[in-house]
């Protein structure tokens, strides 16, 4: 692909837009009556979106026949982790204000927090082993096996959203359907390959 590095740079900047947008809203007083809730939800939503984008790169590459797409996957995945980390920091800092007692209780007692926390924890080793050096050290096969944790993390993330909603599950359902399609594609491919 001719302009790949330009495309990658543009996508990198695009990946920062959700954060810049929050900064702008904060600056111009547009975060609404409950800014902490707004920030938390926005960061959570973008984590989910980026996780799904990351998971869609492999199927897209296969379907489109554009091999260069794979070279964007790490960046997408790291952006997903970046927003997950900000989402997590928002929770422990802005929402709970480092009240460790309350946080521990929350993580243990509230299923939607437990599973969200698990989804985040699962992403940490993937972010750490995302470098070329780590890939080499682990070896391609082991690295790939480890990075299949992203499937579990994405499932947990969608369930996290689903369980937190009071009643209207339209939004989590949209994410669940897309995730099911993306994971279904892989299951289908696996079972076809096995035959």
């Amino acid at each position: 692909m001719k302009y790949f590095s330009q495309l990658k740079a543009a996508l990198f900047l695009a990946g920062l837009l959700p954060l810049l947008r929050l900064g702008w809203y904060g600056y111009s007083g547009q975060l609404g009556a409950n800014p902490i809730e707004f920030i938390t939800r926005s960061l959570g939503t973008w984590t989910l979106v980026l996780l799904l984008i990351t998971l869609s790169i492999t199927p897209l590459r296969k379907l489109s026949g554009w091999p260069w797409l794979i070279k964007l996957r790490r960046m997408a995945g790291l952006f997903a982790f970046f927003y997950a980390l900000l989402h997590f920091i928002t929770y422990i800092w802005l929402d709970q204000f480092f009240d460790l007692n309350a946080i521990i209780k929350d993580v243990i007692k509230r299923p939607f927090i437990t599973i969200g926390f698990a989804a985040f924890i699962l992403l940490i080793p993937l972010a750490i082993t995302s470098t070329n050096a780590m890939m080499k050290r682990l070896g391609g096969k082991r690295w790939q096996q480890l990075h299949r944790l992203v499937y579990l993390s994405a499932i947990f993330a969608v369930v996290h959203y689903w369980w937190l909603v009071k009643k209207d599950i339209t939004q989590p359902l949209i994410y669940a359907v897309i995730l099911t399609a993306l994971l279904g594609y892989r299951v289908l491919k696996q079972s076809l390959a096995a035959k």
Partner: protein
Amino acid sequence: MLIKKPDDIKSSEITDKRLYQSRREFMGITARSLGAVAAGMVAPGLLMASNEAEAIATAKLGGLRKSAFSTSETLTPYRDVTSYNNFYEFGTDKYSPAQLAGTLNPQPWTITVEGEVKHKKTYDIDALLKLAPLEERIYRLRCVEGWSMVIPWAGFPLSELITQVEPNGNAKFVEFVSLHDPIQMPGQRSNVLDWPYVEGLRMDEAMHPLAILAVGLYGEVLPNQNGAPVRLVTPWKYGFKNAKSIVKIRFTSTPTTSSWMKTNPNEYGFFANVNPTVDHPRWSQARERRIGEFLKRDTLMFNGYAEQVAHLYNGMDLRKYF
């Protein structure tokens, strides 16, 4: 999304009248709707056309009496009280009622009183407004979701109405039914709740002097998104108990199964008293975020009204009757 037929757009003159009343108000609402659009970007599926100009209600309510029940805590800004609302009749997003409630027409309006009562009757909203002297009641409002506000309501004690219609001996509970009209309330086109919205109180709760029918806030007629033209306010209970845009008050011998109880009986009970010691199954109720404050504060038993209402629940297991 609401698609208006030309016949439906007869409220244009109302809009105009309200518009010229306060241009600044309009600008404020526009700014608010920008915020709502921002919220819509976070949840793209919820982004709907706004009708903000119609959501304005600025008519003043004069001569409100002060009340000893009012708190002296800092008021939640008008802007927040009228832009951050749970009113599923206008969408499940908290910013959408302020955008979409313009389709609600609170005038003319009637409230029918029926059931186990001597004087079954239908009140016109204008008659209801004159039923008793209006008071200002500055109450805390605690949402089951874990946030709270301090709101200067205008209204009168529910007991005034109850006394006037004289419930009979079978009347043990009061049921409140909100408007069911998917044209005026576009959120009702989704069956997210079992419409109409229904809530209920035990008779002694309904007769309690803290329970009011609110017709305004901040000295003005109730904005549509806050439940115009008349809503219930029971400050010691979670916010969802306070039925909005009430069209029917029914006296019954058995407790109502409220809309939220039907939706999820394990999470929402009939009493729904604010109680920091009984958690919602999915989140803690021990603390709350007061809108406008950074740090969470402790939630108080019965939302700080224990002195007034605790005796209503003597001997009851509040864990069981949540």
